[in-house]
């Protein structure tokens, strides 16, 4: 294991953990499969977060707000 690989792993782990914690807690609050989102958020970033924002939080940045 090279030093660079170690740095990459050490940098990626907090990102994945933060993402999955956010997904788990928010999905738990909304009662929307918290374990599914939390575990998916542990494997990859940032696709689970984007899908969560689109599907569960229904964030639509391309839509203009009325008024």
């Amino acid at each position: 294991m090279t030093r660079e690989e170690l740095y990459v792993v050490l940098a990626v782990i907090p990102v994945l953990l933060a993402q999955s914690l956010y997904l788990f807690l928010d999905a738990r609050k909304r009662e929307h499969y918290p374990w599914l989102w939390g575990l998916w958020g542990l494997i990859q970033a940032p696709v689970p977060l984007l899908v969560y924002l689109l599907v569960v939080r229904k964030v639509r940045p391309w839509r203009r707000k009325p008024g």
Partner: protein
Amino acid sequence: MTDRRSTDPHREIRDIAEEEVRPEPADAGDAAEEAETVRLLRGALDRLDTLAPVFEPELHRLEARLEEHAAFLRRRLIRDLALFLTVASIVLSGLAAVILKVPAVFLLLQAAALAAAPVFIIGFYRKKVNSR
């Protein structure tokens, strides 16, 4: 006209009784008798009010129940978080091991996780449409 949406059922009964025995212009001669009936009815209903036990929720008991529920929710959150962090540490250690030892498996896992995105999106939208 009185408000029928009043929360006091006795008052509602009283209002309805009063409306029903209200003298019509043609029966003006019986007005005194009807007024007496209403007075008797009101008296009886007032006595009923005093007889029936009125349930008044005690504030401190309600507050205690709320606090108890809040404590229960906090305990459950801590338990869930502890469980999730335990699982997360196992998954992340496994992931780190896979990255370093078998990068091919890691790439396969990433491809599977990426392929799961459209499956989730379609699945959730289908469920939403079916529930309508």
